[in-house]
């Protein structure tokens, strides 16, 4: 049973793609909740949990977001804006937490949400092509909190081909940088 669960997980990893065309159908609140639960399960430095999620499903607000987000393709019915509470990070973890770890944590939360979306049959795309100042104005995000990433989520209306990936031995070294990785299981 444990093996089966692992296989399912790796199938989710293997099959996930960035989706940029969506069906207009709404996403049930229960599924949105599961995405958010996945996001808050992500690793976080010092347990600071700097992430703040803004769930946008109001068509009018989505329309405003689209106007300031050139990377928002495909008319997704849901956007999750992953923000970092930089002030809180600074207070709890100092400058490195404010300037670096808060962004890393938000990226991990975004990754978890995208994987959860894939597991639920949804699709998503991680977007950074937006104007942060414009988004802060539209969504009334306070000072000290920064929108880091936007996740467009919806029911996929395309099946993108797998993009080329670098081979493991091109990106992995063994013990020291530059020493070729050899897969000892082969």
């Amino acid at each position: 049973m444990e093996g089966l669960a692992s296989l399912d997980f790796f199938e989710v990893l293997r099959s996930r793609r960035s989706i940029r065309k969506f069906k207009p159908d709404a996403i049930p609140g229960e599924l949105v909740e599961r995405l958010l639960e996945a996001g808050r399960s992500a690793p976080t430095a010092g347990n600071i949990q700097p992430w703040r999620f803004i769930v946008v499903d109001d068509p009018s607000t989505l329309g405003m977001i689209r106007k300031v987000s050139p990377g928002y393709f495909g008319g997704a019915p849901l956007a999750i804006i992953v923000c970092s509470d930089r002030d809180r990070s600074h207070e709890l973890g100092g400058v490195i937490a404010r300037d670096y770890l808060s962004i890393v944590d938000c990226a991990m939360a975004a990754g978890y949400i995208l994987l959860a979306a894939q597991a639920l049959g949804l699709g998503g795309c991680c977007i950074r092509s937006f104007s942060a100042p414009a988004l802060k104005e539209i969504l009334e995000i306070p000072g000290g909190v920064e929108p880091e990433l936007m996740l467009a989520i919806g029911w996929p209306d395309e099946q993108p081909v797998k993009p080329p990936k670098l081979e493991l031995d091109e990106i992995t070294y063994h013990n020291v940088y530059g020493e070729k990785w050899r897969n000892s299981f082969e």
Partner: protein
Amino acid sequence: MSNSAEGEERLFELASFLAVSARGCVDEPHLYGPLRLIDALSRLVELSKHIPCVGSDPFLEEVRDRIENNKALIMHDKEKFISFLDSLVLEFSREIKRRAKSRP
């Protein structure tokens, strides 16, 4: 939404898209500039449907469809994306010649 109101909404959306893209291009990868331009072209063709004095243009509509089907190439195959831009320019060149010949 009336046709006029929808046209005004799309015009505003395009204007905002261009302004935000201009700022984004300062920091983003340089190939995102061409991406924003052809995306704007696609949006412009869509917008033209709401301008009463502009008739339907099958060539431009075909161009819009091709852009929508190919713009995501930039994310995983930059060479193909550039080839797509080359083919788009060639198609415009041929269309320019065709229109010049068909003028009285």
